[in-house]
């Protein structure tokens, strides 16, 4: 009888194609929406965290406070004083200029980092070395964005000479490397930018103050406690500088801030997921209830012809389970597929994360809604006398 009932249920599903499809759709949407929204939260979090970790080692940055424009720059002596700490202080200068190749010209943010302290990552070509630094070689590393905007597609930028215009003076630089693009979120390696040796910077930027820095980025190894280091940096600089003439930021601190943002993001997406689940559930309920009249007559007829109550219930149970489970599976497949598509399309997302609990929950709630609202009206109809059920309107 059970096998017969499976056949009956499947036949019933096929003979009421529209109703079946709509119910199926309700489940698909419910499962799909919940799985994608909640998983997107986790994936975005991982993307952001990964992005920050890509930033390399931990970093401490000291800079003159924005509200104290007259605070003195940092000097080589400051760097010297800090150098006994377990960190590498980068000597950095920046300015803006124009880069020209052939008849194309773009605006370029230019930064200079000394060869011994640079941590620029190269995708192609090479980074400048101590020798370039010593001879103030006119060599430049460009970001991929700059390469794209400055050169035609079929031109290999490596070895090409470009003209930099800085403060009205022109200098020819040779492109020796292309920077690795680590993602868009923090803007590392993106935008139209170029990096050159520090000595070259001093030789082409007439107004550059040699040995003075507006900010000092410091690389710290991952296993070093940044908080301890920050207080040491602070005490050293406090002895050397006026009170309140500098601020300290750490990448570790950024991670914490992003942690909070992603938590908010996840709860928002979770909320959207819950709402979609509710909407999907109501959709399922609606279709089930709309078909109650028709189905009540069917139940009356089946009973009139000798079906026992539990046989009818079994049929409706099988129908509901088959529909919701198929719908759930389709929903999960769609969800997983779209998550992969989204991750492939969005640059700073790099890993598809799907928590099995999310799938189980989405699946469970949809299937439960389908079964409850499929079986409950059926159970009511099956308790009527066959004639009452046949007459139901």
């Amino acid at each position, binding site marked *: 009888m059970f096998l017969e009932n499976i056949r009956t249920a499947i036949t019933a599903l096929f003979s009421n194609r529209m109703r079946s499809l709509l119910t199926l759709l309700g489940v698909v949407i419910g499962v799909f929406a919940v799985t994608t929204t909640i998983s997107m939260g986790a994936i975005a979090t991982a993307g952001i965290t990964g992005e920050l970790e890509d930033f390399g080692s931990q970093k401490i940055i000291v800079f003159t406070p924005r509200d104290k424009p007259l605070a003195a720059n940092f000097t080589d002596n400051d760097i010297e004083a800090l150098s006994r700490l377990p960190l590498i202080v980068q000597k950095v200068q920046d300015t803006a200029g124009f880069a020209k190749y052939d008849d194309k010209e773009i605006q370029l943010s230019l930064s200079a980092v000394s060869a011994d302290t640079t941590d620029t990552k190269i995708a192609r070509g090479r980074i400048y070395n101590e020798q370039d630094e010593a001879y103030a070689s006119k060599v430049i590393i460009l970001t991929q964005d700059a390469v794209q905007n400055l050169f035609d597609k079929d031109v290999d930028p490596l070895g090409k000479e470009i003209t930099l215009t800085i403060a009205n003076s022109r200098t020819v630089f040779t492109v020796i490397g292309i920077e690795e693009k680590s993602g868009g979120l923090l803007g590392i390696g993106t935008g139209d930018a170029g990096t050159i040796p520090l000595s070259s910077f001093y030789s082409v930027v007439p107004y550059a103050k040699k040995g003075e820095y507006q900010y000092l980025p410091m690389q710290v190894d991952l296993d070093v406690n940044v908080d301890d280091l920050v207080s040491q940096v602070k005490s050293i600089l406090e002895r050397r500088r006026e009170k309140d003439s500098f601020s300290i930021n750490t990448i570790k601190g950024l991670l914490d801030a992003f942690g909070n943002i992603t938590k908010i993001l996840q709860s928002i997406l979770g909320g959207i997921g819950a709402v979609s689940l509710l909407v999907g559930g109501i959709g399922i309920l609606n279709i089930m209830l709309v078909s109650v009249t028709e189905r009540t007559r069917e139940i009356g*007829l089946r009973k009139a012809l000798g079906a026992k109550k539990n046989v009818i219930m079994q049929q409706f149970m099988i129908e509901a389970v088959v529909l919701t489970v198929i719908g759930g599976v389709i929903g999960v497949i769609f969800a997983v597929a779209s998550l992969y598509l989204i991750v492939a399309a969005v640059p700073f997302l790099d890993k598809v994360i799907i928590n099995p609990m999310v799938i189980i929950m989405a699946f469970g709630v949809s299937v439960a809604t389908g079964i409850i609202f499929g079986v409950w009206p059926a159970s009511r109809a099956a308790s009527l006398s066959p004639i009452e059920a046949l007459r139901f309107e």
Partner: protein
Amino acid sequence: MSSVIEARGIKKIYTLEGGLKVHALNGLDLVVEDGQYAAIMGPSGSGKSTLLQILGCLDVPSEGSYKLAGQEVADLSEDELSGIRNKRIGFIFQAYNLLGRSTALQNVALPLMYRGTKAKERNRLAKEALERVGLADRMGHQPNQLSGGQKQRVAIARALATDPDILLADEPTGNLDSKTGDEILGLFQELHEEGRTILMVTHEEEVAKHCQKIIRIRDGVVERIEEVKDRQMATFTGDIP
């Protein structure tokens, strides 16, 4: 002869939404002997369908006692009633009541499924029943692809397929032309000769004359029961156009 149907003081009261009570059956007594072939006649609204539904265990009386083959129906559970409807009674509804999205064959096979008949055997029996009512070429049709008379014949085939010993028919020839109607009456005659009990609601005296008795109903009670003197005999040729 023993009586297969014994109804005493049957009342059926419908309560309408406004609280108004409709007495469809008003203390009706009826005894039908085993193997009897009887017509139920009466004006519209006199309670014929209501009576037939109660006799067919499709509905329960509000009051009174109904014994089917000696068994008090009120003592039976829902599932036992389902069993009786399935095994003993063939019911032909006035409104056919076919499953709209199933074929004629599936409709006829349905009660056989609930009795546990295997699919192959089920289809064979259903086919046989459909052939008997002249619908061999309409087995794959759904009800909305059939004429009123054809639907009625599917409903008859469904009642016959289970080989019941009581056949209850609510205006089985109501939608048929006289030639097809005569064929169905011939079929009923055959079934009667096989020893089955047949109760048939009809509005036509001509049709009722094929039965042994006419039970006349008025206002929810049996007015009188007549023996049919000039009984007509229809023969089943199996030749339905």
